[in-house]
C-alpha cells in the first residue's frame, strides 16, 4: 500500500493506483474528458492536471501512478489556470450550438466550462469544417464537436475488438475516422453504439431520440435486454410514455455496460405502428376487432369443451419466467402436458 496526501488529506491506496483513483477514494473531484476506468489511460485531454509538490510540471492525474509520500494539490491557482486554458483551447474549435445540441445538459465540456466560468475562447483562428455524417441509420457523427479524447477509439479497440475507427492525420487535421476515411458502414464497425455512450460531448449522437427530450427530462429505467440469451443490462430513457434512448448499464455484472446493435438501436419496435392494440376474432373468415371479454370467453368455452390431451400450448422464450410458469400451470391444471416452446428449435 502507498500513502500520499491530496489537498492535505492522507489516503492509502494500492501500489499502481493513479492519483485520480486516490482522489476518488477521498471524494475529491478532478475533471476528466478522456478518462474511463475500463480503458488504458490516455492522458490526452489534460483536464485532470494536478500539482504535485517538488514536481516541475503539472501532472495528469488519470495516468500518473501514486508514489509514497506524494503530496498532491487539485485546487491551486496554477491548476485552475491550466484547466481554464485547456478549456479555452478546446472551445477555440467547438461549435457553441448548445441550444440545439442533443448533448446539452449531459456534456462534460459544457459542465467544465460552467464550473470554471469559460463562456468563449480568446483564440480566433482556423476552424474545423467537417460535413455532418448522417449516412447510417443509427448515429450522427459531427467531427466539428470532437475533442479528440479518444474514448470512442479505445472502446472500439479494447472492448468491442472491432477496431473500426482510429485517429487519422496530424495536428490541426487530426480526426477520428474509419480506415481510408470510409463511411462507418463500409468499415468493420458493427454499430454496437458503445462509442456513442462514451463520447463526452456531442460529436456522436444516436438518431433514435433526436429532439425527443432533454437529458434532465428523461426518466431512467434499468432492465434486461429482450433479444439474445446473453442478458445484457440496459438503461432505458423514457419520456412521455416512450422509450427515447438506450444505453448499456455499467452496473450489469453480465454486460458491464456493453451493448450490440440490436439492444442499443433495435428497441424502437416497441413503438412500431404495427403493434397489436386490440383483441381480434375471426368472424365469417375476416379478422375483426373484439373486446377482451368476448375473446377470452370464446377461448374459455373452446377449452372447456375439450379433454386435456386434445389441447396444446406453445409458451415463449421471449416471455418472462413468471409468464412461462403460469402458462404451463394453466395447461397442466386442465390436464394437458402438451406444452413446449422453441428451446428445441
Amino acid at each position, binding site marked *: 500500500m502507498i500513502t500520499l496526501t491530496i489537498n492535505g488529506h492522507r489516503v492509502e491506496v494500492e501500489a499502481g493506483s493513479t492519483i485520480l483513483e486516490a482522489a476518488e477514494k477521498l471524494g475529491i473531484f478532478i475533471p476528466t474528458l478522456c478518462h474511463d476506468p475500463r480503458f488504458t489511460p490516455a492522458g490526452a485531454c489534460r483536464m485532470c492536471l494536478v500539482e504535485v509538490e517538488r514536481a516541475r510540471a503539472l501532472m495528469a492525474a488519470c495516468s500518473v501512478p501514486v508514489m509514497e509520500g506524494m503530496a498532491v494539490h487539485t485546487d491551486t491557482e496554477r491548476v485552475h489556470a491550466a484547466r481554464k486554458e485547456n478549456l479555452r483551447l478546446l472551445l477555440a474549435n467547438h461549435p457553441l450550438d448548445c441550444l440545439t445540441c442533443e448533448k446539452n445538459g449531459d456534456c462534460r465540456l459544457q459542465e467544465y466550462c460552467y464550473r470554471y466560468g469559460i463562456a468563449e475562447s480568446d483564440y480566433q483562428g482556423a476552424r474545423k469544417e467537417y460535413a455532418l455524417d448522417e449516412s447510417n441509420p443509427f448515429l450522427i457523427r459531427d467531427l466539428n464537436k470532437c475533442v479528440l479524447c479518444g474514448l470512442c477509439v479505445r472502446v472500439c479497440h479494447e472492448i468491442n475488438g472491432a477496431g473500426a475507427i482510429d485517429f487519422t492525420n496530424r495536428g490541426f487535421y487530426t480526426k477520428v475516422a474509419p480506415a481510408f476515411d470510409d463511411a462507418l458502414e463500409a468499415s468493420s464497425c458493427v454499430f454496437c453504439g458503445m462509442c456513442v455512450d462514451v463520447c463526452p460531448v456531442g460529436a456522436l449522437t444516436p438518431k433514435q431520440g433526436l429532439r425527443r427530450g432533454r437529458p434532465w427530462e428523461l426518466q431512467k429505467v434499468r*432492465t434486461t435486454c429482450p433479444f*439474445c440469451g446473453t442478458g445484457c443490462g440496459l438503461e432505458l430513457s423514457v419520456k412521455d410514455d416512450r422509450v427515447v434512448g438506450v444505453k448499456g448499464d455499467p452496473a450489469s*455484472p453480465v454486460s458491464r455496460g456493453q451493448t450490440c446493435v440490436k439492444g442499443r438501436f*433495435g428497441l424502437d419496435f416497441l413503438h412500431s405502428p404495427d403493434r397489436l392494440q386490440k383483441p381480434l376474432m375471426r368472424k365469417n373468415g375476416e379478422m375483426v376487432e373484439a373486446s*377482451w371479454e368476448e375473446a377470452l370467453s370464446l377461448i374459455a368455452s373452446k377449452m372447456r369443451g*375439450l379433454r386435456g390431451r386434445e389441447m396444446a400450448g406453445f409458451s415463449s422464450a*421471449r416471455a418472462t419466467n413468471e409468464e412461462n410458469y403460469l402458462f404451463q400451470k394453466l395447461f397442466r391444471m386442465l390436464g394437458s402436458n402438451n406444452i413446449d416452446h422453441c428451446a428445441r428449435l
Partner: protein
Amino acid sequence: MTNSIGEIDNADVMFVIGANPTAAHPVIGYRLKMAAKNGATLIVADPRQIELVDYADVFLRLRPGTNEALLNGMIHVILAEGLADEKFIRERTEGFPEMAAVVKKYTPAYAAEITGVPAADIRRAARLFAGAENASIFYTLGITNHTTGTDGVLSVANLALVTGHVGKPSSGVNPLRGQNNVQGACDMGALPNVFTGYQGVGERGARFKFGRAWGTRLNPRPGLTITEVFDAIYTKEIKFLYIMGENPALTEANLHHVRGALEKVDFLVVQDIFFTETAAYADVVLPAAAFAEKEGTFTNTERRVQMVRKAINPPGEAKPDWVILSALARELRLKWNYATPAEIFQEIARLNPAYAGISYQRLEKEGGLQWPCPDAKHPGTPYLHQDKFVRGKGLFTPVEYQPPAEEPDSDYSLLLTTGRILFHYNTMTRYSGAIEPFKPEEVAQVNPADAGHLGVVEGETVKLSSRRGHIAVRITITDAVPPGVIYVTFHYRESAVNLLTGSALDPVTKTPEFKICAVKMEKLATAGA
C-alpha cells in the same frame, strides 16, 4: 452454461464449435475476441469462415454435420498421446472404457476423411485443448440443430470429461442459449415432460408436490413436443392450439407442413405483440405487452435471473401475458389471484429448489443471481459441477458418427445451412425503424466455385429449391462458405428459408435438422421463377 460469461476473461483455451457469437451473442463475441487478442488460444470449428476465425489459432473447417467425427478424432488424439486427465476420469466419471473403445477407430486420418479437416489440425487442436490449464467449450445450434444433435452434445461432454476441463472457473461446457429467456422458459417447465425445475411429470413425488400446490390432480403422461403437436393436428388428436409469443409459421422447419397444420387445427389462439405470420392463421389474436411494458424476470444463458422492469405502458388495450393468462384462468373458473409478478415469483421459488433463495428483494438489492441458489443466504453459483456432477459421476457416452438425414445428390447438389446475422434477431427486429432499412433483405452466401458453375453474379436473385419448396433469394459470392454449401438466414418472411428445410428430427430432442438439407440453385430466368 456451466461457467459464467465473466470467466471468459481468464480463459487459456476457448473452443468454439457450431456457434457464431459475434453475430448471435455479440457481447459474448466481444469477450471471446478480446480474450484471443490478449493472448488466450482460440480454436474455431465451423463450416463457414465466421468472424472469430480472424482471431483463431486453429480453424477446423469441417463439413456440415460431422461434429461427432471431429470431436471423436480429438478425443482419439488425447487418449493416444496420453494427454487425458486420468485422475479426473478415475475419480469423477464413469463409462470411460466404452467411450474409449468407440473413439479408437477415429484416428486423425479417419476423422479427416469424414470431416474434411486436415489430420494435423485435429491433432493440434486436441493438444492445445488438453494441454491447457483451463479450457472452455462454447457451442450453440451448429451442434444441436441436427438429427444427431443429442450425439453432438454428448460428444462435447466427452471431450470436457476426458480432459477434466469442467467444474472449474473458465473450464466447462457452455451452450450459448439463443433467446433472451429460453433458459428461463425451460427452468419454468414450459416443456412437455417436466414441471418447473425439471421435476418429471412421470414422477409420483413431483406430481404430488405440484398437485398439492395447485390444488388439482395432474396428468402423469409426458406431452407432445412442438414438432409432434403439428403431426398430431393432422391426425386430429390435437384440436386446440394456443401460441404465446412464438412465430412457427416462419421459424419452424418444413414450413408447408407447419402452415398446413395451423390451417387445419380446429381453434388457434395467438398471443403476440405483432400480427405475425402465425397470427394470420388464428381464430383469436390477443395483443400482448412487450418487455418494457411489464415487470418480471428473465434467466440468461449463464443461469442468472435478472429483473425486467416496466418503463412504459402497453399500446392500446394490450396487456402483459401474465395478466391475460390470469384472466383466462378466472374465465375457466380456476382460483387465480395474482396481483403482481412478484407473487408469481414467490410461488416459483417455493416449487423450484434451484430458485428457492431468489426473491425480487434480493434481485433489486444484489442484481442478478445465478441458480442454483437454494436459500436466501446463498450467493448463487457462478460455475456448475465443482465437486460433483448433478447425477454424481460424470457419464461418458460412446458416440458414433452418423451422416445427416438428407445429403446433396445429383438432383439437389448443394448443401443448405441456416443461421442468423448480427443485425437481426429472429423476426422481431424486422419491426425496427433503424435496423430494418439497414438490412432489409436476405443476402445468401454462395461460394465462387458454385456461382461460377451456374454463371450467377454478385447481387443476382436466384431460385433455391429443395424437395419441399422453393424461394427466390439475392446472393453474395464469398469464400466464407466452402464449395458446395449455401448459407441463408431465417429472418426474412419474403424468402422464408424454412420452406426448404426438412423435418427430419433428432430422435431424443425432436429438434429438426435446420442446419442441413439438400437444395439446388437455378437462375431465376431459366427457372421461370
